[in-house]
């Protein structure tokens, strides 16, 4: 009798939660949901229209996200995954865990075709330097290698920018990539596990340049009123990172998930992304880019491997990088 009462009580307690607003679970990387990331504003904005509750679940960076999706498999509680990049999408598609999504209009400088993912922001990898310390920045990998400038880069085995750099050199130089790495070896002071350590070392003056994004100087300019940082423009072109979002096939909130993806690429969310992620919007909002973005370096050429090429190139390119730098 007691158990029955108890059970009835539990059902009663639980039912409002069930009957209440639906919950959309968004799996994303750490910094997306932080106080300074796009998460809080996007959550608020979407909740105002969807009549639902947005719940973020976080996992490290883009690579860790994919590992988490694989770890959880088909019984994942997440509906939407935000923050993979095109170097990971082939791998992600191969899991069969992602559902096709409707494509959204974008203003990317390269054509984007992927039935399972929509881009939400993007940027060019670049070496960032301090204008007061480096008067004439190198204009190519070759010039960088020939200079005695010290750079700090990220490890491609543990960070997405590190992987981006390895693919950048591969995309620009193909079979000659090992030679470029060998020439760059004496310029690389150290390799860090992630972007934060590298950027921290650079701002502390331990290196002249750091692998980051062409949009990094915009943060310093707009948020700190500091115009001393700039990105070097390389004549080989700059490799792109396109961040994408997708919907899990196992989602119970398929309609909400589609609405969220549409919201993510609409003006309101796109404006938020520019000055929180400090990347270019996937679709430039009606009011344009914030003042200061016009000062950023415009690469002469956009480099990007297709998802399939990136997937195939990844392991051999990392091995080349490792061999050249281990000498």
């Amino acid at each position, binding site marked *: 009798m007691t158990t029955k009462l108890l059970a009835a009580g539990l059902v009663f307690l639980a039912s409002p939660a069930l009957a209440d607003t639906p919950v959309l679970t968004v799996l994303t990387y*750490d*910094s997306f*949901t*932080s*106080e*300074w*990331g796009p998460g809080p504003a996007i959550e608020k904005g979407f909740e105002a229209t969807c009549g639902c509750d947005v*719940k*973020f*679940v*976080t*996992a*490290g960076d883009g*690579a*860790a996200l*994919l*590992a988490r999706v*694989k*770890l*959880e498999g088909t019984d994942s*509680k997440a509906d939407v995954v935000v923050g993979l990049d095109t170097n990971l999408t082939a791998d992600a598609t191969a899991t069969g865990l992602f559902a096709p999504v409707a494509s959204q209009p974008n203003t990317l400088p390269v054509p984007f075709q992927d039935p399972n993912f929509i881009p939400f922001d993007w940027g060019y990898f670049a070496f960032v330097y301090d204008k007061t310390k480096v008067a004439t920045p190198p204009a190519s990998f070759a010039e960088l290698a020939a200079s005695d400038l*010290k750079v700090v880069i990220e*490890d491609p*085995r*543990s960070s997405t920018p590190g*992987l981006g750099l390895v693919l950048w050199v591969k995309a620009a130089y193909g079979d000659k990539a090992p030679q470029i790495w060998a020439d760059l*070896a004496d310029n*690389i*002071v*150290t*390799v*860090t*596990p992630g*972007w*934060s*350590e590298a*950027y*921290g*070392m650079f*701002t*502390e*003056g*331990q*290196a002249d340049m750091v692998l980051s994004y062409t949009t*990094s100087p915009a*943060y*310093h300019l707009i*948020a700190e009123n500091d115009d001393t940082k700039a990105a070097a423009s390389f004549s080989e072109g700059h490799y792109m990172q396109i961040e994408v979002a997708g919907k899990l096939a196992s989602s119970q909130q398929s309609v909400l998930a589609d609405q969220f993806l549409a919201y993510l690429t609409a003006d309101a969310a796109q404006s938020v992304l520019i000055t*929180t992620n*400090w990347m270019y919007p996937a679709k430039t909002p009606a009011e344009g880019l914030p003042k200061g973005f016009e000062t950023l370096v415009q690469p002469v050429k956009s480099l990007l491997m297709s998802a399939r090429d990136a997937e195939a190139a990844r392991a051999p390119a990392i091995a080349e*990088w*490792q061999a050249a*730098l*281990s000498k």
Partner: protein
Amino acid sequence: MASRAVEISPAFGLSLAIAALILGSAAMVAARAESFALAAQDWQALRFTVLQASLSAATSSLLAIPVARALFRRRFPWRGMLIRLLAAPFVLPVVVAVMGLLTVFGRGGPVNGALAWLGLPEVSIFGLHGVVLANVFFNMPLATRMLLHGWQSIPVERFRLAQSLGLPPSAQFRHLEAPMLRAQLPGIFAVILLICLASFAIALMLGGGPKASTLELAIYQSLRFEFDLGRAALLAAVQFALCAAITLAALGLTLPQGFGAGLGRRMAIAAPTGWRRGADGLAIAAAALFLFTPLLAVVSKGLPGLAALPNGLWPAVLRSVLVAVVSALLATSAALILAVGAARGKIRVIELAAMLPLAASSLVLGTGLFLMVRPFVTPETLALPITVLVNATLTLPYLFRLLLPEARQLEADYGRLTASLGLPRRTILRFVTLPRLARPLGYGAGLAAALSMGDLGVIALFAGDGGATLPLFVQHLIGAYRLQQAAAASLILVAISFALFWAFDRLGSHYADA
């Protein structure tokens, strides 16, 4: 015989639980693997891991001898403060400490400034020497403190006897100090070796390139980037085997010191004068300079940002302190049970189990636990309890190592007496064990609390929306380019870690001296 078996059971049971947790989580990862193969570069990583760890452990232990000896026999103002501050480097979060070291030893730092002034070329901190330097920075203070406990465990009466017999310092060293070092050093070397084996961020940040890859990085890569669970599980197995071999070797080399019981008094011993006084002073000054300049750098970098601290800081501080205190209490109780059990029996299983967490990769542990709890609950809801559990487990070996020599001594000195008196366990604990072990217990609990404060560890795997601990919060700040605020938050992290350590350590010494 039967009572004997009952007596060791809590420690034995706890050992089994720890082994189950560590090996079980690795097994969970292995169970999800599709194939098992190591990559070619994994062997190179293994070699580098062992090389940097052995160099670091040897340097740390050897440098600690003169410093600990000087601190033991000299009395000077601020001595107590200096000894407590010795723990500070050890409890710094790795990234914060590396930034501090870079400020001092890196480009444009005072060391290179002095070299330039002397007309010498700039020395880069990046490379194997930089990795060893950082590891010595972290672990030499720990070794010093452990050795100091060793010196303090020699009954004061033996020194007085030696002095009244007119033994010169060299003979005192041979008869009293050398046997103590012989008993303590293998254990200290082993524990530092094990700590350095599991480091990955230090080696990567200061190693200067992929040559300096460690096993832990390979585990990180295989779990996070390649999702090669088989390789991760194999690497974890290699790490376990290495750790077990080192632990067993250290145990085989450890001898009881056999000074017998003293009266437990604390008195100053007349220290040798002459050049020995100068040498001791030099050892203490050099150690203080090496350890505290990077700390000063951390403090001076953090100060400017203190004026504008971000909103989310204090909830994160609260969460971190809660996690740190609970896991410190948990780890201390577990370590006490294990150390007393290991000292009483001759069972190696307990010692192995207590050292096992040092070999555990927190990433494998976290992933294993994630897979374990997921069928039953949403992992995010367990973020803090699991962080407590993992932190307690990972800090257990340090505590155990600190307690074991003194627990052995206690057993050798009082074991038979208490047994023949037939004292109840609770009485022994209250009147013999706790007062005698108060000092290392307080110190150990302090270390555990501070280490838990600084540990990113598994929280990143479990953290949901807004449940960040302070180290994760610092990470978020850096990720958002807010480096000055990050430096200030790091300073707060360091200050709180150290305050926690200080409080526990004070409590221990207070109790011991009372």
